[in-house]
Each structure stands twice: as C-alpha cells, then as structure tokens.
C-alpha cells in the first residue's frame, strides 16, 4: 500500500492548511527522496456538501489524469467555519532507482458565505506557477466567477444544463475570461474525428462541399452536444447557421452553404443511456451517405457511395466511459482546441 500523509483540522484557516501541506510534503520527502510531488495542474472543484463523496470518487476514478493538487470545496448550508482534510498520497511504493509520484488532495467544508470570496480561501492553497482548473458540477456559478481570478481554465459540462440556450449562453460568457473545457464537446471528439476521416480520402474530400443533410441522434438530455457538433461543421465549412425549430419532438434547422442549404436534424434517442451522441448520418447531394452509430468494439459505420454501393465496418475504439471523459477534460486543461469557440458561436446562432 503506497504511503499516505494525512492532516485534518476543524474551524481552520487557509494559512494553517497551507502550512500543513508544506509540512506533509517535507515529511514525505524525509521518508524517501523517491517521493516526488507531481507538478502539472491544480484543480479546484466546488460541490454540494451532500455529494462530496460522489465527486471525490469520480475524481479518484480518473486514473493517471489526477490533477497534481486537488482542492475540493464542499458547500454546506448554514456552515460558518472551514473544516479541512489534507492528504498526500503516492501513486506507488518507491522502487530502487525510480521515483514515486505524490498528489495532494485538500477537502474543505465551507459555508455559503465563503463562496463569493472563495478565491481568497483557495489562492494560498494552489501551487504557484501551475495552471489552475476549476469545476462546479452542481452549479455554484458564483463560486466559478470568484475563482476566475485565479483560474486559467474552467471545466463545464453543458449537458448538465437542462436548457441548451442557457448552457450556450453560460459557456459563451466563460470563454470571454478563461479557456473552457466542455465535457459535452469532448464526448463528441471521436465522432468529429471519424467524420473528418470519412472525408479525408482524396476521392471523397470534394463531397464535403456537397453535404446536403446532417442528422444527429443523441440521448434526450444531450441536445446541446448535437448542437455543438452542428456548430463545428458550420464553423469549419463556412456555413451560415439558421435557427433550429421544434418539429415532432425533434429540432430541425438549416444552414446556408455555398452550394445550397444543408438540413440539420437533432433526434432524441431514448435508447441511448450514456450522455452524448448515439449516431450521425451525413448525406451529400450527389447521393453519398455515411452513418456512424455506437456499436460493440467501436462505431458501426455504413457508407453508401454515389453509385449506390454499400459497405459497413467497425471503426475500432473502446468507450472511455464517464470517468474517462472527466479524465480527458482534466488533460485538455493543458491543451488548446481552437475549434470549440467558433462551434459554440454557431450553436448560439442556431438557438436564436
């Protein structure tokens, strides 16, 4: 069992917590020089106190994508004081000649009145000079606004917002101040990669200019993921997006492309259990179509060419699962995707 240093206190202060962190790191180093603290990323998560354990476990489940220092702020109604638990954990026992990475976790129980100035509590606890990612899976927009003073990256999941218009609006607001990593966007990465691949062979690349209709199937609460996918194609292909309208429980719209309109259809798929997309069908004016659907061992792909010839295959790939998506979100905090912002802008245009 890897070694762990632990400290806790009730009714404590950020400076006492920071001192405890320093002391625990010193103690670990004294036990073995092989213990080396990871120094990649700070992560600040703000959660409801009653769901603290669930979020803690989700963060534990991200495997190697642990932030170097995680500060979990649990907001408890009527609480006046700060209680803190600090652990410094090694990922493995040190082996001769090798290092054992350590991560720090700070869990804070705080009250609602701490939230507007949360940055002043968290600031002494983050590792200087590392990027800081903040995440509030239970809302707490006020906390995120406060943390923007010290965070460079905000993690959101637009799918969690029941109203797609509000989700897009909030994301648009955040991208003004920070780099936004949206889990709803990351879930669609394999789909975007595969559509990009489908049109990559030179003989099919021209078909991108002849796209005539796009249908995206999604879990009923994940319409925003579909909108972002449409937004991606609009922004990449230079289409002018039009407003989406409700039609028989589906969202329908058009985008203006150089060679004519492209029909866009969002279809809720009640059979889809995981958040995000369940399938995509792309058709071109020349009669070609490509469908991708979730299947065993990857995405089930079908292509019909202009001459009516059909073929099907599996695009291999294991599902990352929701733990994998969250881990990917943490990893993406250190990268920059230039295509999310334009896709978000187009998605917003489709909702107005």
């Amino acid at each position, binding site marked *: 069992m890897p070694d762990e240093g632990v400290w806790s206190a009730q009714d404590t202060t950020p400076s006492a917590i920071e001192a405890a962190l320093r002391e625990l790191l010193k103690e670990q180093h004294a036990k073995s020089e092989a213990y*080396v*603290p*990871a*120094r*990649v*990323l700070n992560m600040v998560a703000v959660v409801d106190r009653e769901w603290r354990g669930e979020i803690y476990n989700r963060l534990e489940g991200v495997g*190697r*994508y*642990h932030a*170097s220092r995680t500060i979990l702020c649990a907001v408890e109604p009527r609480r006046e004081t700060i209680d803190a638990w600090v652990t410094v954990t090694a990922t493995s026992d040190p082996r001769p*000649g*090798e*290092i054992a*990475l350590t991560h720090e976790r700070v869990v804070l129980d705080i009250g609602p009145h701490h939230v507007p100035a949360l940055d002043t509590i968290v600031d002494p606890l983050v590792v200087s000079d590392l990027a800081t990612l903040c995440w509030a899976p239970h809302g707490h927009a006020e906390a995120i606004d406060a943390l923007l003073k010290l965070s460079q990256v905000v993690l959101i999941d637009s799918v969690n917002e029941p109203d797609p218009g509000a989700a897009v609006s909030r994301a648009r607001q955040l991208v003004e101040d920070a780099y936004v990593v949206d889990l709803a966007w990351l879930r669609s*990465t*394999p789909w*975007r*990669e*595969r*559509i*990009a*691949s*489908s*049109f*990559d*062979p*030179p*003989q099919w*690349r021209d078909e*991108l*200019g002849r796209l005539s209709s796009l249908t995206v199937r999604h879990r009923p609460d994940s319409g925003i993921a579909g909108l972002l996918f449409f937004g991606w*194609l609009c*922004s*990449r*292909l*230079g289409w002018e997006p039009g407003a989406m309208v409700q039609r028989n429980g589906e969202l329908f719209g058009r985008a203006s492309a*150089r060679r004519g309109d492209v029909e866009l259809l969002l279809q809720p798929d009640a059979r889809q259990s995981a958040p995000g997309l369940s399938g995509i069908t792309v058709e071109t004016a020349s009669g070609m179509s490509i469908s991708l659907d979730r299947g*065993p*061992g*990857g995405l089930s*792909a079908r*292509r019909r*060419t202009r001459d009516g*010839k059909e*073929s099907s*295959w*599996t*695009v*291999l*790939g*294991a599902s990352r699962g929701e733990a994998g998506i969250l881990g990917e979100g*943490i*990893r993406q905090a*250190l*990268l920059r*995707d*230039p*295509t*999310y912002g*334009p896709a978000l802008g187009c998605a917003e245009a489709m909702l107005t």
Partner: protein
Amino acid sequence: MATIEQQENVLVEGLERLPVHPTTLVIFGGTGDLAKRKLLPAIYNLAHEGALPERFNLIGSSRADIPHDDYRDMARDSIKQFSRRAPNEQVLERLLERMRYVPGTFDEDAVYERLGEHADEFDGEAGIPFNRVFYLSTAPEFFPVIVGKLGAHDLDHREDSDVRVVIEKPIGTNLAEAKELNRQVLAVLDESQVFRIDHYLGKETVQNMLAFRFANGMFEPVWSRNFIDYVQITAAEDIGIGTRAGYYDKSGALRDLVQNHMLQLLTLLCMEPPVTFSADDVRDEKVKVLHAIHPPQPEEVPEMAVRAQYSAGMAEGKPVPGYLEEEGVAEDSTTETFAALRLEVDNWRWAGVPIYLRTGKRLARKVTEIAVSLKPVPHLAFEQAGSVGVQPNQIVMAMQPNEGVSLSLGAKIPGTRMRIRPVNMEFLYGTAFMSQSPEAYERLLMDAMRGDATLFTRDDEVEAQWRIIDPILEAWSRDPGPLPQYPAGSGGPEEADAIMREGHHWRAI
C-alpha cells in the same frame, strides 16, 4: 473562417488525432517473437484508443502452416499477455475479425499471390484502395528476398494508394552489407517507401531531446565548443544476455547498441536546428553530424575505443556467471559485452569536444543518459577550504529509468563562510505530464501508416553510421584477445578510463 475551396481537409483543425488513410498491414514473421510481444499488442492498443485508420486490416505471414482462426487465437493470446492494458473484449474481437493469415516461406511465389488476393479483396469490400504497409519482422537475410518478391509480384507500387515497407534492424552487420542491402531494397522501392525502424527513436524520451534543444532558447547559446568541455552518452544495462546468446555472440555491444541507438542519440544532441521538422530536413541534419565524425584509422582505434567482457560477479545480491560461462556462448568468444568510444564531431560547433559513448551489459544499474559537461568558470574567488568547491556545470538528460533533465549548479553552503558545493536542479518528466507515453512501436507503426519517416533511419544515415563503426570492428577482429574483464554488477572495466582526455571522468553508473 475556413473554406472548402482549398483541397485540404478543413475538418482536421484542432483534432489531436489526424486521419490516416485506410490501411492493410502485412506482417512477415507474423508468428515471431517481435510480432507477439510488440507488434500485435501495439496494434491492439492503437485500436483501443481509436487511433488506427478508420478501416484497417492485418495479414500475418510466416512459415507456420496454420489456418486463419489459429492465427487469430495466437494473436489474441499474445495481446492478452503482452498488451500494456487489459484488452476490451469487444474491441479485441472486432480487431481479430480483420486479421488473416498466409502461411509459407518468404521465397515462395504463392505467398505473395495470396497476399495480393487478400489485400485486393479488402479493397474491393471497401470500394477504395487501401494503403499497404509491409512490415518485415524477419531475420535480416530475408529482407532482400521479401522486397524482391514484392517487386516481382507488383506489390511494390500502386497507382492510387501508397505502399510502404518497414524494415527492422539490423541493416547489415557492417558497411558493405548495409550498402548491399540498401542497394537491393532500393532496386525495387523508392527511398520514400522505406521505413528502417530503430525503436529507440520511437521513445518519447528520445524525441524530447529535440524539444529540449530547440524549444528552449536558454541552452542554444552554450551548445558549442565555446562552453561545452565534453559529452558522455551512457546506455548501461544491469542484465546479462539472457537467452539471446545466439544473436548477441555474433553481434556484440558495438553492433547491438552503439552503431544504431547511441549514434542516434549523438546526432540528436549535436545536430543543427532543422529548417522544419519534416522527415528529410531532420534527417539531413543528422547525417551531416555523422559525416563530420571521421572514421578512425586502424592505428587510432586502441586510443579511442575499448571493449571488454563481464566476468562472474554479483547482481541484485546474487552471484551471476561471467559472459564466457553463459549458456550458448563459446568458451573462447571475443564478443564484447562492453564498448566505450571517444568520438569527435569535426565541425564548427563541436570541433575539439570529445564525445564519449559507453554501453555494456551486467553493469551496476540500468541507466541511459547524456551528460554534457560545461567548461569550468575562468576564475574562482571562493574559499576552497572546507567545501567541495565549484565544479563545472553539468546538464544531464536522463532517458531511463527516470526521464528528466538535471543541471548541476554551485550553491553556497548555509553558514557564515562563502563555501560552495554542487547542487542539482532537477526536472522529472513524470512529475509534469499526466499522459502515459505510448510504446515506441505504437508511435512508429502509426508514423509508418501515416507516411511520416522522421523517426526512421534513411539509407545514407545507416551507411554513415557504419562508416564510423566499421574500422573499429575491423581493428578488433584483428586482435584475438583475450578481452579485458569487468566483474558483473560493477561500473565497467578500468580500461575505459584510458580513452578519457585529461580532466575528464566517467560518471558513476
């Protein structure tokens, strides 16, 4: 905003994984050790991550006369045993469905006819011509045979897709053999189709050298003879030859590690910044470095090269046999298990800077590193009494076991007096990145499928490597031995000190 009037695929912007054209991969030696331990697990891991081309087929070929299903069973077992992650059954089964097997010897025409039929069938199913990659995971004597047969059966070129051939090391055992092999291969293929693999270049740690040198402005000003005193490159192994006596006793340390891997490290360390990171720009610069190393004259070899064999000693607290007592090794073998060289890159930047290379088996520990020793400061105003004193700065790039960079600095010892001792400023890659490095073969297989030859060795590069090594091998072959000995588990033979210039010292292993 992007437009599709350009012929580029505008959808790839922002994607981490770029599309790779549908590919059929043929592994000659498909039931061999390399295929089982490295290639098939690497292919599975690429499939798991969704990194393979969106349409992918694999055909194994070797002498074993087994049906497709037995090959799939073997592949399944190998992947389960050697993959770096537990396989997802659904992904694995879908991957195995795309595998076929062609039995036969590599000089048999029927093998190539059947390979062509299977590959054509895959193209027909999909309605597009797949790229074809032929991976020669075989003994080197089959390389020209296979390439010749590919040519004879029109499998070497295609009008509407790419054909590439991946060749494993060794590319010859001396310069003449390397040249002859290159001639035979290039009689059939264009150099742009040939991917000579040196798996060392697939390691993240080795690629990081390029980032270290060319993404950090602070090192470039000191990266020359003006500031660097000497360089030492060490690739030490703590293990013996194990079950590889048959191969190793014919090869030896110089051929096994120095001619390829260590000279790769040397070129990456010494090359000029390439104009771009395209395959040929990078390789042009590496070849220039090799050309700037003068091959030694026979009489120079004893002064610049040392070889030795390990004798019985202790490893991990247990007694271990000497090389000559290892199973499969001849009692009078003169194969070196340790080699150390002093080379000089005779160009404007490096003239006069000795570059020491050292590799060996059964050394004190496993370590691969490059240590760059800077010249001492010109004047010492500090107290020398009671302190270790000011030592020249040393930049150490460690490749294994811990990947990182450290810089030794002189620092004041706390107290009232101005006493100095060296301290280390250390950076460990493992502490700064969350991602797990892909296996070298995963990276290299993808590069070959993508057609990116940056991390593969070009024909002139291999020949330039052999031009440096050949005279040493020749000189050693004329000297019957016995070879100097070093105890297993030690830091190597004392004789290695003889090639060091005055004031230079090997780092402790």
